[in-house]
């Protein structure tokens, strides 16, 4: 049961990833694209967790942890670039 659920979940998250990709390609506003990318990061975290569960190995959680911790840095930087041009002032 769990195995099926895991694969369904992974499929759903993958689908979500595609939807993010569509928004990223489509835009139209810069904000939309940044949201899409930020959401992609979160979805990739979900996928990493699911891959870990499917493999029965918690070894990948550090990757998810790291992504949760630093993934937003690029989002912020992209935003700051639009807002200020200079991301470090």
């Amino acid at each position: 049961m769990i195995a099926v659920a895991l694969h369904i979940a992974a499929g759903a998250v993958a689908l979500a990833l595609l939807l993010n990709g569509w928004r990223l390609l489509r835009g139209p506003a810069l904000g939309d694209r940044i949201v899409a990318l930020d959401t992609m990061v979160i979805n990739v975290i979900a996928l990493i967790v699911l891959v870990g569960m499917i493999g029965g190995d918690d070894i990948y959680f550090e990757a998810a942890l790291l992504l949760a911790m630093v993934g937003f840095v690029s989002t912020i930087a992209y935003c700051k670039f639009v807002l200020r041009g200079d991301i470090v002032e």
Partner: protein
Amino acid sequence: MTILADIAVTGLLLLGASFVLIGSWGLVRLPSTMERLHGPTKATTLGLGALLLASVIYFRAELGVWTAHELLIALFLFITAPISANMIAKVHLHRLRVGAIHEPDSIAGAPPRPSEDSDWATFEAPARDTPAATANT
């Protein structure tokens, strides 16, 4: 593994995945940037939260180990997600103000001014001694 854990894990997985998917679906179908921002910041937090919880239970029940990293993942997401949303909203406000985007279908339209003698920080640099300015001292 107990049936209970089995059901809990399955349920949490499906729930979490659904929320993740719905959040991303919202990103696709909602009408303008500010609305789209709601999808990811909320749906995905719970979505991911549920998946993480499923993982905790799963590893405990399946492999007999307590994994706590899921909690940390959630913690970091709870800290960072509002910041991302805030910054993206600022981008939106800024682009709207400088006329870089025209969104007739944006339901909320342009934001109202906070008060007579002040504007939003994105449009007006915070004055000295305000909380926004003292943050950086």
